[in-house]
């Protein structure tokens, strides 16, 4: 039986109510807009780069508790990481939320999103900001999760 507490952990609720790095970066080196047309959620991710390293990251937008907390925790997780390190983290995060056997230990605080794997319809919520980050890194501008 799916567990409500597994999906809405305290840490997740905290980040959805008090999102970290929840602001625009001006100027920003790279930005991207991510949308989930199914629910109207949308976030803009702003990056300031130091070479290929993410020096500063901020985000703005609206979404459900899962998407907003995921965006908030992502900004904390990738700050200071190189592009490759961030993309590698996204791959492992994606495996975690889709139940593909990622090692939660290796994901640090992001492991709280493991409960999402029991609710496949919510995977897009948890991964929206990550797709947006990837689009920003690849200078793609906008990304839409269909």
């Amino acid at each position, binding site marked *: 039986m799916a567990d409500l507490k597994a999906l809405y952990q305290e840490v997740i609720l905290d980040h959805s109510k008090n999102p970290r790095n929840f602001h625009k970066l001006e100027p920003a080196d790279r930005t991207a807009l991510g949308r989930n047309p199914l629910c*109207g959620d949308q976030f803009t991710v702003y990056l300031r780069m130091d070479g290929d390293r993410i020096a500063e990251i901020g985000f703005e937008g609206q979404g459900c508790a899962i998407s907003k907390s995921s965006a908030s925790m992502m900004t904390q997780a990738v700050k200071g990481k190189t592009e490759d390190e961030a993309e590698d983290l996204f791959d492992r995060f994606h495996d975690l939320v889709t139940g593909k056997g990622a090692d939660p230990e290796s994901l640090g605080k992001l492991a709280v999103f493991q409960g999402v794997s029991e609710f496949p319809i*919510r995977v897009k919520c948890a991964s929206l900001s990550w797709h947006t980050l990837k689009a920003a890194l690849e200078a793609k501008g906008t990304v839409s999760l269909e």
Partner: protein
Amino acid sequence: MASKTKLLMNVEKIRQDFPILSRTTRGKPLVYLDSAATSQKPKAVIDSVSDFFSRYNANVHRAIYELGEEATREYEGAREKVAQFIHARSPNEVAFTKSTTESLNTIAYGWGIKGKLREGDEIVSTVMEHHSNHVPWFFVQDAKGVKMKWVGMTDDGALRMDEYDDLITKRTKVVTVTQCSNVLGTINPVQEIAKRAHEVGAICVVDGAQSVPHIAVDVQKIDCDFLAFSGHKMLGPTGIGVLYGKEERLQEMEPLMGGGEMIREVHLGTAKWNDVPFKFEGGTPNMAGAIGLGVAVDYLNGIGMDSVRQHEMELTEYALDALNGVQGFHGFGLSDVSRRGGVISFTLGDVHPHDIASILDVEGIAIRSGHHCAQPLMERLNVPATARASFYVYNTHEEVDRLVAGLRKVLDVFA
């Protein structure tokens, strides 16, 4: 917390006809409150589909043997049932499609794009349409250079009928409107709207996807030129829909799909169309779907559409009363249940509708969340999304009570 008034129909007995209602989801008894998306099916409908394939599957209108005659008889019998259900003048006014969406696209293509519309003509629609009654007309707009106008609505969710006075002019050729909003539940005065359309010589197209399953619909009384609806929202199978059109409208219209069945004769390079309604049924039709829809119509007639409506009004009133007592509940739509169907869209404080739906899901309660394929309406309401509970013949007061308890749980989680 049980029922406050006596129901006209025996809901417990009705529930026994729906096998799916006895299952659990997330380990709890299923509370299905998403019938505006698709309804559940009674055993009689499920059996009729299985029966078709077990006993008389053959292609209709073609096979020269007993099986084919039986299949044709049942398929055409379903058409007659549907025609009577909506009070069409004749079964010839009922074409089977795959859905409301296909029916509306067929009208927009056949009457709009291939029809008489010219640049400078106008189509009057409304802000509360489902995307399937928006987008096909955008095709017409782009293909023919016709202009679209949209009637607005009041803050509580009624169409601004006074706006028709300005928007309908002698340039108006099509007036299209949903009879019942899939988001607000608002029941629109389609008879009055059809009358206004006809005053300037325009046709009136009615989206009946949310009305035909829930209220008695009489196309002659409404006097609409077209009515579109789906089988799966009215206890029937998926993949079967209905295009009703006045016979003269259907005759003057070009078909959307060419193929078998829809032709009278074909020569290399040319073809003549079959009679209505067959010219709109290119290809082997969804025979089992049509037959299942016929059985769904029998089932609804067995209850009586007046009783269906009475039950839903009573349940909606009970639900609105109870939900308005939940902290942070904000319901959209009219408060007068005689002017709305059994659809309640709402928000709960600042909790996102997806979070509401997920928490209710864990409680075994199925509701819808999102923009409900009505983004222009969401923009008008100035919300990105809403949660939506919708009722049908099998829903009970106890299920409403569980919804209310579920919403209190949502508030606990987000406290």
